[in-house]
């Protein structure tokens, strides 16, 4: 038992060390030629546009469910009119950035982990290396940057759709007009509610991309290893997003005084 927990700790530390070195390599390489612009555009499309449907469903459901859940309590305190403001602040500050990042981590980090893992075990990455094609630039830098570009955009998109979901529920259950909902939201939220939520998703995008690439790029053990890379990519990136969010909230409170 003691031995098992010791090896688990060692494996964990080894992974953290490996991930740190991999991240450093990313920063050293990202600003060096060759810049793979075409591949970056392709990957941004893969990460962003191909997540539109999933993000839309999740965002609408978040807005609608939050409104439905908070309605009875707010009504009990006679604060029904504050429902749009409460939902907007919750969605913009926290729910949309974190939940969308975790959802995207599930789709994208797993995909990157499996794709690069499969390229590793079929020697495609070695083939790129031997052909002097700089696989780190071509495969890793483009995917990480694509996640960093796409996640903030997906978050803005999700913010909007979550509010649409909230409005639909408010309209059906309380007959609230669009104009009233809009005014209620706009009078209660400001830049400090919206911007930090979007900015932190740039870092969450980095986490999704770098963890997915790290797991796939270092995959070993054949097809079983590829499966493990995909699973680890999702688990580790989701966990790191949640941990990073605690730090992000602390920084937001410190810099924007939104308490």
């Amino acid at each position, binding site marked *: 038992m003691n031995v098992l927990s010791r090896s688990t700790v060692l494996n964990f530390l080894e992974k953290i060390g490996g991930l740190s070195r991999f991240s450093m390599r990313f920063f050293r390489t990202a600003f060096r030629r060759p810049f793979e612009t075409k591949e970056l555009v392709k990957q941004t499309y893969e990460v962003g546009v191909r997540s539109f449907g999933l993000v839309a469903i999740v965002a609408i459901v978040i807005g609608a469910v939050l409104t439905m859940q908070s309605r009875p309590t707010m009504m009990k305190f006679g604060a029904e009119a504050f429902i749009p403001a409460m939902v907007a602040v919750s969605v913009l500050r926290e729910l949309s950035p974190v939940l969308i990042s975790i959802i995207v981590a599930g789709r994208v980090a797993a995909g990157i982990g499996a794709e690069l893992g499969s390229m590793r075990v079929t*020697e495609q990455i070695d083939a790129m290396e*031997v*052909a002097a094609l700089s696989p780190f630039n071509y495969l890793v830098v483009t995917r990480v940057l694509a996640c960093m570009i796409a996640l903030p955009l997906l978050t803005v998109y999700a913010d909007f759709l979550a509010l649409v979901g909230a409005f639909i529920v408010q309209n059906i259950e309380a007959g609230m007009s669009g104009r009233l909902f809009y005014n209620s939201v706009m009078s209660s939220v400001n830049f400090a509610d919206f911007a930090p939520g979007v900015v932190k998703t740039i870092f969450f995008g980095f986490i999704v991309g770098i963890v997915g690439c790290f797991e796939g790029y270092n995959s070993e053990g054949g097809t079983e290893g590829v499966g493990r890379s995909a699973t680890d990519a999702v688990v580790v990136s989701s966990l790191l997003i949640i941990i990073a969010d605690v730090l992000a909230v602390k920084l937001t409170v410190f810099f924007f005084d939104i308490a």
Partner: protein
Amino acid sequence: MPEKKETTTHKTLIEVEHISKSFGSNHVLNDISLTIGEGETLTVLGKSGVGKSVLLKLIVGLMPLDSGIVRYEGRSIAEATEKELNEIRKNIGFLFQGGALFDSMSVGENLNIILHKHTDLPLEERETRIIRALELVGLKDKLDEMPSALSGGQKKRAGLARSIVLKPKLILYDEPTTGLDPITAGSIAELILSLQTELQVASIVVTHDLPTAFTVSDRTIVLESGKKIYDGPVEGLAEAGHDHLGEFLKAAKLDRSRREEIIKNAHKM
């Protein structure tokens, strides 16, 4: 240990001096030395797991050496900067066991990405080079196919076309015929020899397929338990005193007549 080392007249391209490689307690290669000259074909024979593929990866710098040195035209691979190593690698083609085609790209794109990155050729000239390379391996009609639509043998041929498209001085073949039926394996071996004859490239062919070795070799080395136990002409294997190998060779009744025929046909092309 009988070792008939053949004196080579070719200008030296690759020098491997006293290299060793271990994975944990598994000593895969132990004090291996060899040279290969321009236009020469060296086959590396040995059982599975003896370190043949590792040797190729060490030569091209895909793995770090534990000790020893590998030089390409006198330049140390291990001491080369990333830029220098990339320059060296442009002169080396590598055919991986499964072809290792980039599966998100068509066959043509697999070749084009290399020409696009490393040459200033206009698109039309790149297309001409790509079609010529695919013609050489008999896959001209597969230009727009995705790798998933190709058979095992076709993948290796396409991988070979990718390896020669930059006109390298050296091609490394990692088990080029493994997993193929005897007819396809024979055609790959013929292809290797034809390319060597036509393009005058040096080759290192790692294999445990003796008919392939008999078809393509100028010189052969045999690895066993991490050591080189034979270095000489492939015909000398039967008399080299390795019981198992000798018996196998005699039973297989391999000869070099097929090789002469292929070389003659390649010159006619």
